[in-house]
């Protein structure tokens, strides 16, 4: 365990020593901030509109239709899913590829470590960085809660869902990184796989047959929709869990094959 945590510690420290962490965090929060502003402005406009309607029709109930969760939180989370698909590969692309390129993987292979030590240690390091990244979105949620009154459940679960999706993307990124020594390559492979998981949802909707159902099941969005609405099902947890384990296992295989070449 100590060995695994040693690797995690090194990975995390390494993130914050390099400019990558800071550019990723900056880009991420800036883009999210801009989108947040757009969404809030939109909400405000709608709110004003419905204020007028509720006065005209003497129906205060109408105002309740401008739902903060629906108009702000849910779009924000959906947006963040897409941003994660772009950003997580940038976090994970160097995890294995760089070690291979600089020759430091020899140190790992000649130390008394199992491949799982290496994979899980790196996975945990990237995961913690992801958690820090998502924690930065807390500021936007903080603003919403301070000025408004959204439902807590969907917000908490939506955030958890983002963490789960991000973790799946981390596992994919780790696998992609273990296939190559070129970081750019690693980025594109993991980005492509992440995008594929998103797109299968759209394809699944177009095909109504069993194939369509299967594709829909594979899509990330399908399982995320429940979480955004405030629903946590075991089916969703199993989906995320199995993808994470699957890609971690693939990463382990890729690492061992390269080592025993």
């Amino acid at each position, binding site marked *: 365990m*100590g060995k695994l945590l040693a690797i995690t510690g090194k990975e995390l*420290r390494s993130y914050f020593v390099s400019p990558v962490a800071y550019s990723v965090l900056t880009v991420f929060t800036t883009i999210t901030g801009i989108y947040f502003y757009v969404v809030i402005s939109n909400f405000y406009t709608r709110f004003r509109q419905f204020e007028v309607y509720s006065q005209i029709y003497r129906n205060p109930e109408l105002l309740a239709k401008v739902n903060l969760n629906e108009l702000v939180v849910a779009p924000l989370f959906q947006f963040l899913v897409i941003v994660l698909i772009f950003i997580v590969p940038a976090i994970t692309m160097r995890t294995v590829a760089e070690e291979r390129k*600089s020759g*430091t993987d*020899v*140190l790992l292979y000649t130390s008394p470590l*199992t491949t799982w030590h290496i994979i899980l240690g790196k996975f945990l390091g990237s995961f913690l960085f992801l958690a820090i990244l998502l924690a930065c979105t807390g500021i936007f949620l903080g603003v919403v809660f301070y000025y408004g009154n959204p439902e807590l459940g969907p917000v908490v679960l939506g955030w958890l869902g983002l963490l789960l999706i991000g973790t799946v993307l981390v596992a994919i990124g780790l696998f992609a990184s273990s296939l190559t020594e070129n970081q750019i390559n690693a980025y594109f492979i993991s980005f492509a796989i992440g995008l594929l998981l998103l797109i299968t949802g759209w394809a699944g909707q177009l095909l109504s047959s069993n194939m369509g159902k299967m594709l829909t099941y594979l899509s990330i969005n399908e399982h995320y929709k429940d979480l955004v609405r405030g629903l946590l099902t075991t089916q969703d947890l199993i989906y995320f869990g199995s993808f994470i384990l699957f890609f971690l296992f693939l990463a382990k295989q890729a690492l061992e094959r390269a080592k025993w070449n």
Partner: protein
Amino acid sequence: MIEARHLTKRYGELTAIEDVSFDLRKGEILGFLGPNGAGKSTTMKILTCCLPATSGTATVAGFDLFRDPMKIKARIGYLPENPPLYLDMSVRAYLGFVGRLKGMSGAKLRGRIDWVVERCGLAEVKDRLIANLSKGFKQRVGIAQALVHEPEIIVLDEPTIGLDPRQIIEIRSLIRSLAGEHSIILSTHILPEVKTICDRVLIINRGRIVIEDTVDNLENSGKKLEEVFVELINKEERAESLSSEAH
């Protein structure tokens, strides 16, 4: 400490080493001598469990290469041709990391790091980032990481390559001082190095062992080691081209 028997490594059609057998005795310094591409690094990678052999067996520190690689890895220190340095860490942080990878921790690790830093002459740079070190210091850090976990066996692949003459002398005396408590294999193609440091030497060429003997014995015939080396290499290459002509 090491018993290698008939180690062979093939990459498809290419044979890197063939039928390599030798012993490393406790406390001695064994030199691998040979031209570039002879198979010295390959043999070392196999002994340190970095690379699997195509065939053959070896016992390292009493453990079998295939059955107990973990136990071997805990007892062996390895400096590859390119030292595996993390450039974004300080010297001390790096050695701490290596120590933890090998299973050390706590006060024992800290004490060991101090010892290794002192022994390898890294005291003045111990808090500097490895990226900012000169080649000589980087090489010393590379040697330090091979020592930090008190290994029984140390494998050094061209430890003095690229160093200036003064650094070379320092590293050689460091290596010599480690013998006895540690058993060392060192590879080089610098003949004077073999003479000054090694107890015994293995001459390797084109993946095969040409001869295994003590330096004194090889020079006994009155010839210098350089001559013996060139002669043996030429003799072997001539024999090989003759046999390939015959086919």
